[in-house]
């Protein structure tokens, strides 16, 4: 699951895989602004076939946050 999420981050933000880490957070890379955030949410929802609520969308601020919430939803 971590590999799949990393690949989505790489594609959506057009970054090298080495930049993706658990600590990577919104604002660290130029493409992760508010519109980029909508893109990553859309891509993650599509690929993991899950849905986030409005509150969850706001709470998702780092790669680790995504990983944790997706784990909860798919398990």
């Amino acid at each position, binding site marked *: 699951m971590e590999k799949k999420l990393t690949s989505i981050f790489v*594609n*959506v933000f*057009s970054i090298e895989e080495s930049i993706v880490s658990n600590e990577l957070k919104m604002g660290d890379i130029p493409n992760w602004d508010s*519109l980029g955030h*909508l*893109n990553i949410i*859309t*891509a993650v929802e*599509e690929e993991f076939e899950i849905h986030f609520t*409005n509150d969850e969308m706001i709470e998702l601020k780092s790669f680790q946050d995504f990983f944790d919430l997706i784990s909860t939803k798919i398990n």
Partner: protein
Amino acid sequence: MSTNMNNMTFSEIISKNNDLNNKIKNENKIFIKILSNITLHQIKPIIEYSLNSNDILCSVEIGEYDNIVKESLEISIEIPIIFWEISNLYDGFAFEIENFQIKKINLLKERIFLELNSLFSNLSTCKSVIFNKFSHLGFSHNLYEKSKFQKFIEDLNYYLINNKPKNFEVIEIDKCISICSIDKSFNFRNFYSNKSLYSPLFFKTYSKFLHPIFRCITGKTKKCIVLDCDNTLWSGIIGEDGAQNVKFHISDTGAGMYFYFISSILKSLHDKGVILCIVSKNNYLDVEEFFSLNINKSILKSENFILKKINWENKDKNLREIANELNIALDSLVFVDDSDFEIDLVRKFIPEISSLQVPKQLFKYPHFAIDYKNLFFSNNQTKEDSKRNKMYLDSVKRNKIKINYNDVNDYIKSLKIKVEIFENETTDIERYSQLTQKTNQFNLSTKRYEITELKNLISLENNHLISLKISDSFGEFGTTGLCILSLKGDFAFVDTFLMSCRVLGRKIEHSFMQELIKFSYRKKRKLKGIIFNYAPTTKNAPIKNFLDQTSEKCEKLENGDIEYFYDKNFKLNNKLHNIIWKKN
């Protein structure tokens, strides 16, 4: 390259689009600007990838949020696409309007009509404008009675359709919504939180609706459909079942009705000017027997097919011959066959041709055919289009008598070609625009002009628009040549010089050139010469060959263009044609 992105995820599209963008040079791209009052950033990679991966090179820019009318003033070379979402006139508008009095609704409507008028006027000189029809579906689909919001949208659409300028292409986005379904088109969570109404799936579907329009803009509309016979034009195998037993009519049992529907679709394409041909591994006489046996029953007649290659040769060879005999590029052809083998073979050996396989489940065949009609979409139908098949049929007859002549000039003289030349004649301006958009091979600059652009060009004092109408003893070719030249200072500059491939090979281009030069020196103008600025493309080598053969002086420019010089001493042919200058 042709890609279907139905099965690609949004993140894959973003990634692949970035890779593709890095490979395409900017100077080859069409620039698209999206003007909108909702958040639409997700559409950019999807439209870019959808068009670029289908050889329509483009770059998409998203305009400012909610500034449609003002931004329309700044459009120059871009093709604008307008998403005007009425539900987002302001927060909650689609719900609040239900409580408005009629008077207030009418005032609002009048305000939008005024804004639409400003938009029409600001964008009237654009090459093309793509405007989405207003939609109420997202906010009314589950309501039995007609809401005020729905009525409001219907009135706006009525105004839009009846007042839009000719360069506005209207996309019915309700069709995209119906393909995706309501649930999958919209993302209301994102709409209420970020004004982002549509889903990536909707954008994928919407992008496909852009293909016909952009193929038209870029001169990539298909011209000819080549069909197999057995299980493509009729159900059954004629060589085994016999001409009298194949099924093709609505009254036939079994699969006949599907082929009847297909014949209706093909006939409508034929009547629009699409060339129909046959490539089939069969005995020629069997196929002709089918047409003669069913002359009253079959919608399609033998003469509706301009060329029939019915033999046992490989189909790629036959298809190349068809393109050659019709003098059209291979990528103007669409090939339809039911066989995996034949489709794979043609895809492999001639990837430029769009090869389409008849669906295995025949009930899908009619909609498959409706879908490929998009490949032949033309936003600018002219009277030449409906005559095109007759013209090509005449052309085939001409070629048959050509073999009787040893000397090409004798053959040309025998055709008794009449060339009528017109200066600034505007009654045929739609055809001129179409010629600039469709002509690829014998085209000096490949500049594509819309009607409004041509009108503007002619209105300038030094510009002259010269057109040709051609006929011969077999029939009429109609308007098939065009030149735009401007007489400035010591030189005449040729901006556009083109001729339809249908009339090439008869040395009319030589006469046309000669007449243009005579025209430039009229009224004792003291010119140093006439300059033809050739801009190379992947397809316009034929005109370069002509210029190389006829001009004594040329100069290569830094941007890759070549300037060819001619002066008043130019003289080429010996009265091969009857030339008549028509006065305005």
